[in-house]
């Protein structure tokens, strides 16, 4: 079946270090969305990428969508303690409404 793999599962960083999480889909995606979930909270939408090779930035966050629209990454520059949480990618399958979430990467930031 359709799968979206996300790595790593956990990442511990020192405040100020960079962080990257990667997603890879078994099938070509219509778009990919990124969400952040704080412990005990709900997924909060960060960004959506639609075009092949698209790169978007939000302050210290850089999002990329691969040329084949099957992989994506989120990079945080100079992490802060407020960045802690789980980052999920979510791939929208082509031609449908189904959104497949990756397993998430939980980010821990040590001050």
């Amino acid at each position: 079946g359709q799968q979206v793999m996300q790595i790593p599962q956990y990442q511990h960083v020192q405040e100020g270090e960079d962080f990257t999480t990667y997603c890879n889909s078994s099938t070509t995606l219509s778009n990919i969305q990124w969400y952040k979930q704080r412990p005990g909270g709900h997924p909060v939408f960060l960004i959506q990428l639609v075009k092949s090779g698209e790169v978007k930035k939000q302050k210290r966050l850089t999002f990329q969508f691969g040329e084949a629209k099957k992989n994506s990454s989120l990079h945080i520059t100079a992490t802060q303690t407020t960045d802690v949480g789980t980052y999920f990618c979510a791939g929208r399958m082509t031609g449908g409404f189904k959104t497949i979430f990756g397993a998430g990467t939980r980010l821990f930031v040590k001050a």
Partner: protein
Amino acid sequence: EPEVTQTPSHQVTQMGQEVILRCVPISNHLYFYWYRQILGQKVEFLVSFYNNEISEKSEIFDDQFSVERPDGSNFTLKIRSTKLEDSAMYFCASSSRQANQPQHFGDGTRLSIL
């Protein structure tokens, strides 16, 4: 800013009982979704709903599950005969007039089956 609201925040139910989880999507949104998240695991797609019918559902969404939009504002998920493994956080989400728009999630209902 408009929000998706879900009630109750926590539901405790005996195994075998029916449960209804309620959601009020953002008012001008047309696409509605249910997801579940077992503690510590990923968010899993259950069903999408558009134009008063199910547009897509996952393997998880079997005959025990049903969704309904009984009026112009509520969107409900019913589980007919709950099982222990139904214990999870259930999130409702909605998105706007176009299908490929971001989904806005509610705070979720924590369902505990005893």
